[in-house]
């Protein structure tokens, strides 16, 4: 394989090179021999094993998969996947991944990041990768805490979080990663949970199929520093008959084409307030219950959904909030290159000579 295949005139694949004609890759092909070093019970284990199960099914060869991470517990993940990988520096993973992805449309590029990595030190790069619609699948492992540095509050932590650096409770308001991604113009935004393997697999599969930037917030448990309640809705946890915001209910699940109803016997639903246009919790039987449509171009609806977490619900719903099609930066970047040199690469000597040169005779 030559990186410069193109320089020699060979056509470059526009799609990640598949495994056609080869034995289909297995979980083992995506698994390294490295010992996995996360705390027992850490949500990262489940996400890793989901990734290992998922990648062979995507039809992209391991060597055409690149996983780029920042720094944090979560960012160790590339070491455990037998693909090309960069364990980069804190917060900057999207930048390295951008350099890989836009130059090599034949690769499938994933970013693994934590809530500190992505939302604090790397906030700038995250919003710009989303804004540009770089063809990256960004997995934001959100444990609402800085794990690797031993438990300080993060930009995703709730106000009042008690941690070593906030012994009297944190004062700053958290980011809502979904709202942030939507605000940055992300074309694919989803939320899922480490403990629900089926939901996780389905969400990541949908993200992998998306052409452009995909931000997937994965609610991740950190039993060591931040044991947030993690049981998904319907997993047998106790429910509260009269409180739609009860954490025990687990998050609402969003399914395209279905009305958004939840609670015991679907007694509650998300309805649009006809006066303000805002989304509110109403009666599950109300005919105005919203039917979920992640394909809505205008992101106002998805944004309102994400904000329910702060107003009416215990936490943000899970599922795909937004999935719209828009040319990726990678595609535009490659098209610009291709149209600029229809007859092959320009001749170097004529560039160097220019039109304003003169000759000194010998």
């Amino acid at each position, binding site marked *: *394989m*030559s*990186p*410069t295949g*193109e*320089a020699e005139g060979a056509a470059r694949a526009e799609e990640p090179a598949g495994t056609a004609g080869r034995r289909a890759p297995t979980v083992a092909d995506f698994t*390294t021999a*490295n010992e996995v070093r996360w705390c027992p019970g850490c949500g990262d284990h489940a996400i890793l094993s989901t990734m290992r199960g998922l990648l062979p099914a995507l039809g992209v060869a*391991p*060597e*055409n998969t*690149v*996983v*780029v*991470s920042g*720094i944090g517990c979560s960012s160790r993940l*590339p*070491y455990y*996947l037998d*693909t*090309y*990988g*960069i*364990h*980069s*520096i804190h917060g*900057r993973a999207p*930048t*390295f*991944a*951008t*350099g*890989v992805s*836009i*130059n*090599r449309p*034949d*690769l499938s590029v994933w970013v693994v990041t934590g809530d500190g990595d992505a939302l604090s030190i790397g906030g*700038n*790069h995250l919003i*710009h990768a989303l804004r540009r619609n770089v063809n990256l699948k960004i997995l934001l492992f959100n444990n609402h805490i800085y794990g690797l540095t031993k438990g300080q509050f993060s930009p995703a932590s709730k106000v009042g979080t008690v941690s070593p650096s906030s012994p009297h409770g944190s004062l700053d308001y958290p980011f809502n990663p979904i709202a942030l991604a939507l605000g940055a113009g992300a074309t694919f935004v989803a939320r899922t949970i480490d403990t629900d393997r089926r939901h996780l697999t389905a969400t990541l599969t949908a993200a992998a199929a998306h052409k452009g930037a995909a931000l997937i917030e994965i609610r991740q448990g950190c039993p060591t520093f931040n044991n947030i309640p993690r049981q998904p809705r319907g997993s047998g946890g106790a429910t509260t008959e009269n409180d739609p915001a009860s954490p025990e209910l687990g998050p609402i699940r969003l399914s395209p084409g279905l009305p958004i109803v939840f609670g015991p016997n679907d007694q509650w639903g998300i309805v649009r307030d006809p006066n303000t246009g805002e989304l509110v919790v109403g009666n599950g039987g109300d005919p105005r219950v919203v039917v979920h449509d992640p394909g809505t171009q205008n992101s106002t609806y998805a944004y309102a959904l994400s904000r329910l977490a702060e107003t009416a619900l215990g936490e943000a719903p899970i599922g795909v909030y937004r999935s719209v099609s828009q040319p990726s930066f990678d595609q535009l*970047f490659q098209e*610009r*290159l291709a149209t*600029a*040199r229809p007859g092959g*690469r*320009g001749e*170097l*000597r004529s*560039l*160097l*000579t*220019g039109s*304003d*040169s*003169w*000759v*000194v005779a*010998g």
Partner: protein
Amino acid sequence: MPTDQLPERPDGVRRLENVVIRFAGDSGDGMQLTGDRFGAQAAAIGNDVATLPNYPAEIRAPSGTVAGVSSYQLHIADHDITTPGDQPDVLIAMNPAALRANITELRPGGVIILDTDSFTELGLDKAGYEVDPLTDGSLDSYQLFAINLTGLASAAVADHNLKRKDAARTKNMYALGLVSWMFSQPIEDTADYLRKRFASKPDVQAANIAALRAGWIYGETTEAFATVYEVKPAALPPGTYRHMKGNKGIAYGLVAAAHQAGMPLFLGAYPITPASEVLHELSLLTSYDVRSFQAEDEIAAIGAAIGGSFAGMLGVTVTSGPGMALKSEAIGLAVIMEMPLVIVNVQRGGPSTGLPTKTEQSDLLQALYGRHGEAPLPVIAARSPADGFASALEAARIALAYRTPVILLSDSYIANGSEPWRVPELDELPDIGIELATEPNAVDEVGNPVFLPYARDPATLARPLAIPGTPGLAHRIGGLEKQDLTGAVSYDADNHDLMIRTRQSKIDGVDVPPLEVDDPAGPPGSGADVLVIGWGSTWGPIGEACRQVRADGLKVAQAHLRHLAPLPANLASVLSEYHTVLVPEMNLGQLAGHLRRETLIDTVGYNQTRGMPFQVSELASVITRVIQGVVDDDTPEQAAVGGNGAAKVVGDVTARLTAAKAGVGAGGKTTVTHSDATREAGR
């Protein structure tokens, strides 16, 4: 000029060996374009040319004020020159502020051409003149040509449908036409240039060309100018030449490097003066498979470049000092990942925002040492605008061959200055391509083929590079310490020590050509007693100063460092052959300290940070004083400063402090300091 240089020829054309011309006006007057065109015209008729643009940091400082003056100085000659000249012989001043800001630098007896249009009460007031210099006799010692350039230009373009203000703006082309006539330069190239530049605005195009012609004709037909000057073509070595700016030279050197490596070029950059132009130039070259990416900040820019390198591109990032500071963590990552990467720092005055449009060489220590951990990397520096090309190619060669980030230092003077550049033939360019790994390079304990990303080439210590898409070689690398050979994460103490030493040895072993000394009096040890050594853009002024000193009958040797890390292997032995080593720098002694650290040889510093290149006359006088043993180590404060050898040459401040104590103005002159004790060590 030397009007006294050569006798007037019978045809009334006076031949000059060289002349220094400065165009000065308000930032909005188009002086940069005017100077640039004059330089291109001179280059096209075969003169050697060196230029020095100088402009305010603000896009539009208050018009008519001294703060808003923009200028462009050109040195044109019939022989090889390397500096834009110390003092202008000819000053074109488009307003009172331009006159005021530049008159003190004009050579006594020099020529002033000024636009009288704005010598009004208001114009004089804005410039801070209390009395009109046109009438108070203060310009008597110059040859003054006071002409209403604005008025004449406006009249010349009256037929072209322009608003009054736009008509007046053609005054720069009128002035260019006039000065071109004065120096016997054809203006057709400039007319062609204007045709292209204003192709979409026919009225503006026609008016500018008309003004240019009218200026020329004014010279030809009025009797105001008695003499026409001419600078004959310089005897340059045969070849195809081009007028080249440093920033463009670096851009082209990078394109050539990618071509010679058989890789696409990928640039990640964030705009910053004076480096943005490299981004602009490269952004034009999509058809050469140059991929340029304007990132959200300098960190993202280098991150993307490293990602590009990882993916098989020639990764490059360009910036200036503040951006370098932001990149330092990622540079460390490239060091430990051992990724090829070219990092260009076009230096400007610092610290912080400092003097963003002025030149300085104060990022040398940052380049050499400005990372945490043991993070060695090669550092090289361009010495002139035309050298931008070759030095960029050299930076890329080292980066690829040794799988390492390389810092290429340029500066604002090189970036914006220009001079003739001989266009190389393609077969003169080195082949810098590298073999990428395609196969496993080892077997594991049970005999399965494996890829060891940190196995090394025994000669260069370079590691194999396998890029994504290569089956069987998938591997993961990052910032954590790597186990030797496998590249797996390793916290082992002995391994860390080994890897640190290995990375250092690799850089120490970069093939760097030996230092050459220019001394007509003989080889080191048998020629001059004094060696002047520099790095970067001081090459031109130091070289011309040495030639002047030699013309005065003194002996002096010159050497210039392109490679600052690693240093040439013969450096210490060369330096030790001289009684005194003089190091002029546009900083407070960064190379001097580096030399002492690396060679244990102490040097004499000559330092200034005034945002402008050294003047040749200034350096010539310093060199002469050093040769004659006249150094200021009799001043107690300076002896103290110079005496410990470590804190070098804060001469200027010391001189001022001394002068202030004694109640005299120090006049801002930099002082040479010297340490006797360490001079002995230098033997």
